Every structure is written in C-alpha cells, then in structure tokens.
C-alpha cells in the first residue's frame, strides 16, 4: 500500500463534509493541513479543528485562529448530511459501529458520533469528530528491535501515538518479518476495515477480526487463524489479561497498548500490573508525547 503524505491524508478525510466546508478546508495552508488531527462539527456551532492538540477555528475566508473570528457555523442540516455521507446513505449498514459511537471512513479515518442514544443506535446526531488517521512508517523500528520471544506492551497517555506505533509494528511483523498476525480491531482503529478491506496498511500476512470483544476475539483468532502474534488496542480489563495469558500458553505473542500517564501507574493499575506480573510481556514501551522518545522498560 502506497504511503500517503499528511496533506493527502487530510484531504482524503474531507469527503463526507458539506461542499462549502470542504472547499474552505481544502484551501487551508498546506502547513496547517499537515498538522490537523481532528475536524469537529457540532450542530449550530463553529467548525473546529484540533491542530497539534490545541483547538483552532476556521473562518469563512479560509484562515485559522485560536479564537473564533467570523467562524463557519455548521447547521443541523449540514451535520445530518455529513452523518449520512459517512454512512454512504446506508445507516442500517453501520448500525453496530454507530452503537459504539463511531464510523470507520474510507482511508482509515474514524468519525466519532455523538447524539441521543437509543437502543437502535444514535439519533439526532449533535456532533461529529473526524479523527485523521496517521500512518508513520518505521515508527515501531526501535520497539521491534527489542521484541523477544514474549509480547510487548505499548503504554502512554491518550494522543501519545500508541495506536500508530502498534499499527506500524503489525505492518512490519506481518510484511517484513513474515509472521502470521491476527489483529483484534474492536473499534476499527488499527486496520479500519471497511467493506472487508483494511483501509490502513497492516501487512500482507494479517487477519483482522472486527465487531467482537477483545476477549472473544483473541480466543477466536487463536482457535481459527493459528497466529504467531495477536495484536489489539487498549487492554482494559482483567478478563482480557486472563485471555492473553491463556493465548500465550498456545505459543502466541501479544502486542497491545494501555492508557498510562506515568511509569508508576504501570504497577498501580490492576490491568497493567497483572499483565507485567504474568510474564506474558518482556518489555514495556512507555510513550510521553506524540513523536517523542520511547522509554523501554524490561520486565
């Protein structure tokens, strides 16, 4: 899969937006386009971008500022049209994703959906957050250099690039190192499968399981796909750790991520502490900020 420039990635995420908004965003300065992480739309509120972690507003002339100055107001109708475009005018086809609060877009981007929750999903969508997918080829090089015969935990605060590193690790292990990798992609953040095709490059030897919980997904992958490595995002419960321990007994290595602010929290949080104690992982890659240095902790 051809690697896309950051500008192309940004532009490829604009397709569901109303034409007038799309025109303004496509005309933003290239250096701004490169740094945009999120596009936030709220009913009857100004269009907002997240650039380098900070909120920025776009004005009608195509400029950006840290304060709203003659901003573009998104109407409720425009928001509804954006939602329908995200679903390709087929809400029924995305019900399971919508129930979880997101829609996987073409190009591997993800749109978070907010509104009134009903048993069938979400109605009266009140805000949409389009997260631009980042693919940084080679960002997992140092991590893979330390991967032994056991698994790896990638830990860090939200927005530190855990999933980006995990995705690159999967791509390299599957593509370059010819390992059989199973990805449990519950929220579509790693492979971003849309209509059976991964929108992100996860290598040629990767099987992706979606639409299922992590615990069930690990069990299913180990039973059916005979993987050498199982990868999934955000290990969050002790039950998932137990399943990981069981899968290791099947000879499978695990790469996963966890939300951890500081090193001490690794040992304080029940989930990460149990994972470390179990001996399933040989190394923790601790991130601080996106693109920052990775601290490796041997365990």
């Amino acid at each position, binding site marked *: 899969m051809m690697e896309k420039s950051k500008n192309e990635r940004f532009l490829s995420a604009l397709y569901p937006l109303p034409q007038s908004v799309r025109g303004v965003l496509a005309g933003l300065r290239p250096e701004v386009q490169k740094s945009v992480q999120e596009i936030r739309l709220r009913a009857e509120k100004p269009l907002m971008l997240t650039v380098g972690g900070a909120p920025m507003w776009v004005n009608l002339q195509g400029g950006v500022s840290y304060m709203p100055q003659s901003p573009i107001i998104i109407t409720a109708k425009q928001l509804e049209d954006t939602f329908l475009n995200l679903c390709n005018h*087929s*809400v029924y*086809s995305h019900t399971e994703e919508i129930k979880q609060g997101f829609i996987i877009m073409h190009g591997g981007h993800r749109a978070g959906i907010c509104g009134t929750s009903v048993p069938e999903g979400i109605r009266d969508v009140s805000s949409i957050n389009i997260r631009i997918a980042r693919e940084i080829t080679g960002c997992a090089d140092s991590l893979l250099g330390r991967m032994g015969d056991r698994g790896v935990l990638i830990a860090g605060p939200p927005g530190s690039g855990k999933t980006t590193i995990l995705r690159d690790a999967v791509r390299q292990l599957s593509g370059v190192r010819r390992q059989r990798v199973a990805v449990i992609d519950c929220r579509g953040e790693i492979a971003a499968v849309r209509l059976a095709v991964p929108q992100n490059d996860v290598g040629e030897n990767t099987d992706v399981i979606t639409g299922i919980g992590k615990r069930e997904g690990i069990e299913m992958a180990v039973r059916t796909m005979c993987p050498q490595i199982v990868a999934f995002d955000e290990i969050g419960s002790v039950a998932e750790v137990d399943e990981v321990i069981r899968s290791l007994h099947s000879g499978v290595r695990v790469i996963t991520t966890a939300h951890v602010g500081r090193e001490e929290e690794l040992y304080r949080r029940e989930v990460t502490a149990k994972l470390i104690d179990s001996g399933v992982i040989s190394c923790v890659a601790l991130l601080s900020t996106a693109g920052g240095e990775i601290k490796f902790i041997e365990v």
Partner: protein
Amino acid sequence: MKILGALLLIAATTTLGARSASRLYRRERKLRQMYKFIDSLCEEIRLTRAELPDALERTGGSKMLSDGVWTDTYGLNVGDIRVLDSFLSALGKTDIEGQINNARLHKSALLERINEATEEKKKFSKLYLSLGFLCGMFAVVLII
C-alpha cells in the same frame, strides 16, 4: 378530398383516445415496476446489509435511475409520485427495522394503487378508444 379529410379527422381523434388509454396501461406497469423495485431492494438490504449504492447495483435499481425510469413520470398521478418520493426520502436513513417498515408501508400503499390502476385500465381503456373513434365520426358527420 372530403373523404381524406374525414379519415384524417377520425384518425386524429382515435389517436387521442389511444393515448389516453395507453396512459392507463403505463400507470399500471410503472406502479408494478415500483413495487418490484422496493421489494427487491428491501430484500437485498435485509439479507446482505449491503450499502445502498451496492444494493441498488445488485437489484438493477442503479440502471433504472440512470435510465430515468423514475424521473419520467408520464402516466403517473401526483399521489403515485408522492409515494415514491416518500419511500426514497427515508431510504438508508434508519436501522434495518426502520428500512423494512419503510418498505412495507410503501409497498402496501403501492398495492392499493396498483389495484386501482388495474380497475381503471379495465374500465376506461376500451372506453377511451371507442370515444376517440366515435368523436371523430361525430365531427365528420357534423362537418359534412
């Protein structure tokens, strides 16, 4: 010359009658097409959960749209067009249950209209043809 004129007049009024009769045939045929379109699209969506463009492609709906089947409303009345518009306006906007209910509602409305169109066709198509011919004859008699 007179005979030619008379024949032309009768032919013209008979054509008018035939056109009116053909509208009735056309309405029934179009309503049946609509019913079949909704039925097969709904089944495709229910069984495969395919996205709308794919579902339309598989059921031949895309071709109908590109051929302008639904934009050519000749023969249909305002109520018929409203049923189709109402179906299309809710298409793809809800979950699967909503889509099935939308199809069911509009199919039953269409079924009533198909029955009505069939009755009308039976009752009036021959009448329009005969009226066209007879009007022509009457005009010829009056003129001569």
